[in-house]
């Protein structure tokens, strides 16, 4: 069973995604504190990362990941901006990531994860 880490400051969103993932046969954890999450990151197959977070933004998290040379693929979830634009920007700045608009989670999240994990 693939393990997915959700880094998301809003508990409702995190909980909803965790449920959705588990319903679709993944093992999912979420961490509302990104700093704590970073430390755990290595042990997962995929990381779902929110960009707009109050304590530490998704960009800072990506910067940390880049420093760590983390090999785990990251799927960024955002409620701001046009997804392709954000994806272009982040991939150029840190490392290749996929970006999914928050509003498309219910329809596209599982498809996207399957694509990344090559299932």
């Amino acid at each position, binding site marked *: 069973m693939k393990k997915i880490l959700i880094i998301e400051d809003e508990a409702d969103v995190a909980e909803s995604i965790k*449920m959705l993932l588990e319903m679709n046969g993944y093992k999912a954890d979420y961490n509302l504190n990104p700093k704590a999450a970073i430390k755990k990151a290595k042990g997962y197959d995929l990381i779902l990362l929110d960009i707009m977070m109050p304590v530490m933004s998704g960009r800072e998290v990506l910067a940390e990941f880049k420093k760590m040379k983390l090999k785990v693929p990251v799927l960024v979830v955002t409620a*701001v901006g046009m997804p392709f634009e954000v994806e272009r920007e982040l991939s150029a700045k840190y490392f290749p990531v996929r970006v999914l608009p928050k509003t498309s989670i219910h329809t596209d999240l599982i498809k996207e994860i399957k694509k990344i994990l090559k299932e």
Partner: protein
Amino acid sequence: MRILTIEEKKIITPLFKSIVEKIPIGIGVIDKSGDLVLTNKKMKRIFLYFGQKTNLNVRLVEEELLQKIINDIWTGKESIIDLEFNIKGIIKNFKAITVPITNEKKEISFVMLILHERTKEIQDIKRLSIAKEVMKTAKLIDIALEGKEEVDEMLESLVAVFRKNPYLGCVHILKYGENPKLYYYSSTGQSKSEIFSYYKKFHLKKDMLIVHDITKGEYSQHRETTVRSHFGLILKLKYRNKDYGILTLHFKPDVKLFLDAVKAFKEIASNISKMIYSKEIEKIEIERLKELKRMDIGFKASAVCRLLVKYENKEPKIIKVNDAFKKLYGYSEKEVIGKNPRILKSGLIPKAKYKEMWRSILDKNIRHWEGEIVNKRKNGELITVKLIIDTIFENGEPKYFFANHVDITEQMRLLHEINKQNEKLAAILNSSLDAIIVGDRKLRFEMVNTSFEKMTGYSASEIIGKDIHDLLMAKKDINKKRLKKFKKTGKIDILGKQVETEIITKDKKIIPVELSVNKFKIDNDEKLVAIMRNIAERKRLENEIIAKEKFYQEIFEHSDDGIIVAYYDSKIGDFIIKDINKRACEISKVRKEEAIGKAAREIFKGIEKIGLYQKARAGIQSGKAEYLHDVFYSDGRISGWRDYYIFRLTTDEVVVMYRDITERKEMEKLKENYRIKLEQEVKEKTQQINQQLEQIEQLQKAKDEFIRNMTHELKTPTSVILTNLEMLKQMAPIGKEKEWLKMIEMLHRNAERLKNSIDQILNLTRLSAIQLNKERIILDDIVNQVYNDYSPLMMKKGLQFKKDVEPIVIMADKNLLILLLSNLVSNAIKFTNEGEIKLEAKSYDHTIMIAVEDTGIGMTEEERSHIFEKFYKADPNSPGTGIGLTIVKEIVEKHGGKIEVKSQKGKGTRFEIYLPRE
């Protein structure tokens, strides 16, 4: 005419005489002394023609010519020359033929001179030749009259001669006597018997001699008593089918003499044939005629130096000179005869000149040369001669040159001297810029110089001798009385004075001149010399100066600036006003007559205070122009703002130009105040506008910020709702699945709508800031992607999808292009309930066209004009945010393209997008 001696009578026989008498050509016989011993009728007539007596001595014929004739004749030669007789002014050309007449000892005892007028035809020349030959024959035959009886043999040989000679034409040879016999005849158209009977008739009249001239068609008879029984010899000459003469000669048969006769006949035959048939001879004769005409015949006696030069083997040799030659060149005859005439050369004449001379005199068609040559005397002295050379041709070749040398040395020297003097005088006169006239006492032009010719247009040659006063003077200011007096006495008051007057030129122009007339004497001859100078230019300048002065005075008076002219008087220690113009009087409120002559500081009391006085002092010393701007003048009487400009004249006077600028100053002040006020206002207004703009910008930012925050805030809950709804679908309570699903579906649909609206608004707010990321796109890929995204929706509504896309590659932002097409297609689906959605793409040169067409509800014109406005909705109840098309338009414009809409209410809508290919 002298009586012939017995000896001479043996040669000039009566027979000879009688034959000569009958021939219609002038014939005379001349003895060695040059006396005529015999003349025939024609000859007498020729002499008569010239008004001479018949016994004219041949010496009257040019001696020099005779010399030539005799030179040739007495050496046994025959000669044909042309004579030109000029007696009493009538010129007659004659051809003279001389034939030597010899005695038994073959010595020439007489010369037969045959004269024939040249005006007759060439035929006559021929006849003349024949006559000559006949005469010769007659003489010889006459000699042969004494002697032998047997002639048959000789006659035979004579026949043979004639037979051999094809030129002789028709010849009859017959024998007279008891039994006349025709020895020989050639064809003349007469039968033998005719000829024979003809001669028989002669036989009957034994003592008759008949000269038969066929051309004239007449017979002449002559009685000759000494002739008895003879053989007759007939010589008939035919030339160009015409008979020229027939001669019957009678002689006693004598073998020896007859042999001579035969010999003579041979000669005759050959001569005749030559004379008659050789055209060359004709030519020679004509040539000689020309040559001899020009030949100088007064050779020896002439006072002019003459040379006769023979030209042989291309070498000229002097063969004869006259006394004048000896005198001129100092050579004796011996020294020059046989020499080349080049001994006379001085060596000063260019070779080319001699070359030209030789070319001329050796040319058959020119044979003449004239020119001036410098030659050398025996003593080495140089002389200038005029050389005239004529060439005589013989047989087409130059044979003799006759040269005349006329000494022109002294002439040349004098001419040179005179020329030099004249040149000097002319140079002096012509170098004068003034026109010079030399006139005589009668006031007639004698001489004028080139300046005169230039001034008046007259050439010297056309006015010499004319009256100076009449021709030249425009004013005729010397009256008739004075003129008359002058011509009489030579006295006139203008002599030695300088006067101003006017003259008339050839083309009737009047020129003012300064004229001075003087008298002088040459060889007791009183002359007048007048010197004229054109003063038109001076007059013009004078007038011009006057006009200019007036002009400047006008300018001075009417100048818009005040002008004062003053000079510094060191005694008074102030400027004295010399002139003041109208404007200055106005500005300074003074009267002209008040100011002129007064000291400047007395009239203009304030000038020291403002520094004008000092400036003027400085200006007059340095010569530099001085300025004084914006000064306030006041002297208690008047006051005002002034501009001054001060400069020095070449006359050391000072000019002050000034202007009252008080009005302008006030105006400037007003203007300046107004400008400051205006500037202040503009500044304030600008500030206000900037503030407003800032506010607007802030508002815009706040709005964008708000929208962004709002949408973000909306997105998260929507996302949670949608995610959980998705999961809820799986968890329907048993038995109530249908209602559950229906409710979940309703919730889902609305949450979805909310989500779409949020996405669109977010897109729009981001779009303006976004950077285009152009890449090569295969258009068909994008169309397919969009179709794939929307096909479920279309299928759900039961709409057909049609695609008509050309293979196109375009440079564009892929994501934005997808967004664009997605918006158009979703829009089309939204407003179409049945029919089809059509996607079209076409390629042009630099653009591509993408069209999305539907068969939906369409739009009114009013609706269509608003569709690109943000949040516009034709029907407020219709779904969507109303910003989809705004986004479409933004994307198109960001790519530098344009969008067009065609729509018909109830029928459908077509969007056409044009994008640049690159």
